[in-house]
């Protein structure tokens, strides 16, 4: 594939490119940051980026939101509703994971007095 074709495809799929950029930024926070809360903010960024990918996947140029109102015909162009329905579930899963992780952090801080991954690792080996 030639470079110009690659770039033009990146242009049409710009939302997807942004989504994976956010995914990488979030992954950076998860992998490289030491603070556990920061890690989890990074994980939330990753999750929302994944949702952005889904919603962009379902988008249609000039499409309307998939809700029937007065004056709509069968030929009206709608966006794809399935990714939206899936992401509703995804958001719930994300907030559930976050709440569990945060309560674990409260407990860890109570026991260890720090939320720094390096220090915690040292404590664990001692």
């Amino acid at each position, binding site marked *: 594939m030639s470079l110009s074709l*690659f770039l033009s*495809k*990146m242009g*049409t*799929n*710009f*939302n*997807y*490119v942004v*989504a*994976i*950029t956010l*995914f*990488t930024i979030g*992954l*950076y926070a998860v*992998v*490289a940051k030491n603070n556990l809360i920061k890690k989890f903010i990074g994980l939330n960024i990753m999750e929302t980026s994944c949702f952005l*990918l889904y919603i*962009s*996947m*379902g*988008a*249609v*140029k*000039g*499409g309307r*939101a*998939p*809700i*029937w*109102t007065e004056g709509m015909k*069968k030929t009206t*162009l*709608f966006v*794809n*509703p*399935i990714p*939206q*329905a*899936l992401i*509703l*579930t995804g958001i*719930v*899963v994300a*907030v*559930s*994971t976050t*709440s*569990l992780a*945060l*309560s*674990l952090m*409260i*407990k860890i801080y*109570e026991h260890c007095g720090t939320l720094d991954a390096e220090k915690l690792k040292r404590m664990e080996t001692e």
Partner: protein
Amino acid sequence: MKRALVFFSLLLCFGIMLIAVVNMPPMGDPKSMMMTGPPGRAPIPRYLSEGRQEAGAENIITDIILNYRGYDTNGEVTVIFTALMAVLAVLNRERKNVSYCDIETSPVKRSVVVYTIVRIMLPFILLFSLYVILFGEVGPGGGFQGGTIIAAAAIIFILIFGYSQGMERFPTTWRMNFEGIAPLTFIAMGIIGLFLGRNYLTFMFPGFSHASNLLLARSMLMIIEIGIGAGGAFIFTSIFFAMQREDKS
């Protein structure tokens, strides 16, 4: 060394994903495989054209999450219930008469402006959340969103008026009964189909006219929405309580 390794692996990850997304079908194409699908088996055209008539709600997303793919949503409400139970396994439930709170002992004085504004706003927030729940079938919104807004209102109330007031209004023993209500409503509505000779989570039954069937389906969807809303509200309030008033025994 470690930084270089992290940088390199992130770059690799980005590159691989870039190849994937560039090769994906072009965005915004109304004729893509997702939208048109294989003839006769494509879900999207059917959902869009028939959803209102056979699933019972004007909002097609509500149709999908509660009817066509209702089993997924059954799993989803189980996930939030699991989240609450997980939080309670890590932290204990808050205990009555244990004074352990930040705001009541905080040196900052409570501002009259905030107090008054919250008092005026709260009924409207609750009204809005009820609107979101009940009109989830005809407009954007639905049980879970409305439930979250109710929980947010409860959290604001607790933050501004203090925990002892919050505990009085939402006592633990009372909340406990309703936390599992979301999966239970779902299951109760789903089981009805079994007794009438249809599969789980069916809302259309034989022996009724189409109009009455539609009415029945709409009311059942409404009950499920209310159940999910109530369940979500109780669960998030309980998570907030457990995280704030953690009982150190």
